[in-house]
């Protein structure tokens, strides 16, 4: 396998992980206009809960399940108690979700301590396979698969199910959805919890990729997700996918050739998009 292909695959794997955070963030913003600054912290909680359950039971699958459930619960509480009373008040929402980020991050330090925790790959996903006679880690293939699965799953959810139709309609005109006899608030809560669940799920999946967890994990990954949704178009599902892939690949290449400026390149790309097309590559001007 050529170096380029190897880097490309690694980039797609990284893009998958970023996508798992960005998609929930973007969905929530698109539907409710809420930018959740605690989203990354939920990602981190998912990873920690997943790790704890994985260590306790030895089952990675149970870990994923537990992490996801934790994310859903956190998201649901968050929406109910802190976000819902402030719909329409952006400043308060931004300030509140940032406060929740602080609390959730400190909570992790309180429960699991401030230090690094190792997160081993499950045995079945350890090792490498040969792709074009070069070794490539199985876990990254797993990550890519998960990313694809979520991409297809959310796409089907949005286009094929009644809930998906309601969400897409709600983005445009929540009032009319109400007038058709649908409780939009409940749908909003569900989407918020679902988005948080996706982030937490992403956390567990990402854990073994990172090899270890630290309490500030959420913020760093959330930043990538922010950059992705600015680039792709905030609240735009295909945009989130495209942006994730783009950032994943570019960062991987930069990390190989110019490791010192990998993060700078993402910010630079975001700056260029903001100058050239402030609504994002796939975004529509509102």
């Amino acid at each position, binding site marked *: 396998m050529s170096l380029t292909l190897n880097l490309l695959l690694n980039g797609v794997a990284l893009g998958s992980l970023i996508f798992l955070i960005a998609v929930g963030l973007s969905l929530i913003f698109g539907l409710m206009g809420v930018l959740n600054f605690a989203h990354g912290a939920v990602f981190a909680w998912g990873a920690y809960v997943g790790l704890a359950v994985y260590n306790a039971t030895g089952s990675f699958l149970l870990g994923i399940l537990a992490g996801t459930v934790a994310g859903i619960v956190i998201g649901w509480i968050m929406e109910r108690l802190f976000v819902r009373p*402030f719909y*329409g008040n952006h400043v308060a929402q*931004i300030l509140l979700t940032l*406060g929740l980020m602080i609390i959730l991050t*400190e909570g992790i330090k309180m429960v699991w301590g401030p230090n690094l925790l190792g997160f081993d790959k499950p045995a079945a996903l350890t090792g490498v396979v040969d792709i074009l006679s070069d070794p490539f880690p199985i876990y990254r293939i797993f990550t890519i698969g998960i990313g694809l699965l979520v991409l297809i799953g959310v796409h089907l959810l949005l286009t094929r199910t009644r809930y998906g139709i309601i969400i897409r309609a709600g983005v445009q005109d929540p009032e009319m959805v109400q007038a058709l006899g649908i409780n939009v608030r409940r749908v*909003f809560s569900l989407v918020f919890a679902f988005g948080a669940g996706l982030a937490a799920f992403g956390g567990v999946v990402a854990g073994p990729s990172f090899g270890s967890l630290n309490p500030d994990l959420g913020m760093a990954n959330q930043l990538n997700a922010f950059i992705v949704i*600015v680039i792709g178009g905030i609240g735009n599902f295909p945009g989130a996918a495209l942006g994730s892939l783009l950032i994943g690949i570019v960062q991987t290449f930069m990390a190989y050739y110019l490791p010192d400026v990998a993060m700078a390149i993402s910010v630079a790309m975001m700056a260029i998009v*903001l100058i050239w097309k402030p*609504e994002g590559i796939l975004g529509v001007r509102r």
Partner: protein
Amino acid sequence: MRAKLFNNNLWLGFVLVALCLVPFVSSSKFLLTMLISVFLMAVYSMSYDLLLGYTGIVSFGHTIFFGLGAYSVGILLSKTKQPNLIWAAILIAVVGAAVIALIIGFLSLRVKDVYFSMITLAFAQLFFIISEKWSSFTGGGDGIAYVRVPTFFNDRVKFYFIALAFLAVMYLFLRRVVNSPFGRTLQAIRENEQRVESLGYNVLRYKLASLMISGCVAAMAGGLWTVLQKYVNTNVFAMDRTIDALLMTIVGGVGTLFGPIVGAGVITFAHEWLSSLSTQYPFLERWLLFFGILYIVIVMFFPKGILGTIRDKWRYKGGSRHAASDSKRRESVL
């Protein structure tokens, strides 16, 4: 109106005199150092409040400017070994802060509000990484230790008075700014941006100017911070530093200049106190958790902070909360 202004000034004079007396009452180096850091943090938080409380925009990257000041002083003084270049270093920091503010503001303030918060956060991370990676210049993760500062500052009492004077001057400066026609325009932008635009103001220019002023003041505070600490490392670009400004401003009271000063005092002392207790009660190491909860309670129930809430109680015995209104349709449903 006039009587109130006079009262306010009287109040201030009283506090200032009291603070001037401190070094003569207690010679505790520890106390003076604490107070110096309160003063510097107060300036930093006031500059943050110009954005949050007066212009109504939420920055999550305010530490960029603080860090810029801190590193300018650290790098210039240690590279040249010329402690007297301190003023030049601060000047460089101020100019740099203005330029960076212009760039970040231009990128983010033209679009929706939330972009500003996201993008300032991303830039803060960028600066954090630069300070870590560009180690030949910044000393990397270790930072720059033993920054040689002018001997003058080694005298705690003298430094104390400098810091106090700095706070007083910056307070008066910012008070002038927020009460000027310019500052009044900022407050109107906070209230109803679209209306300000239809009055014929170019809103972007005002927001940019607000960000630049705020950045320059924060840079000065950061420069003196290095003088106080005698070292600088990547922490000055860390998210925690922005959270400090946020906590102090929110706890003290947004939309007042005195609020952030009170907030800086409360948070700094409480932090110190909790840290000292944490040797006995280890859970207190998570002091930020308590502040986070306090912060949320304040945002939800006392949006004007300690000072604003007290003032309202005095003024009308229970004011009403203001809520920014937004897209009508969304709101009618939610």
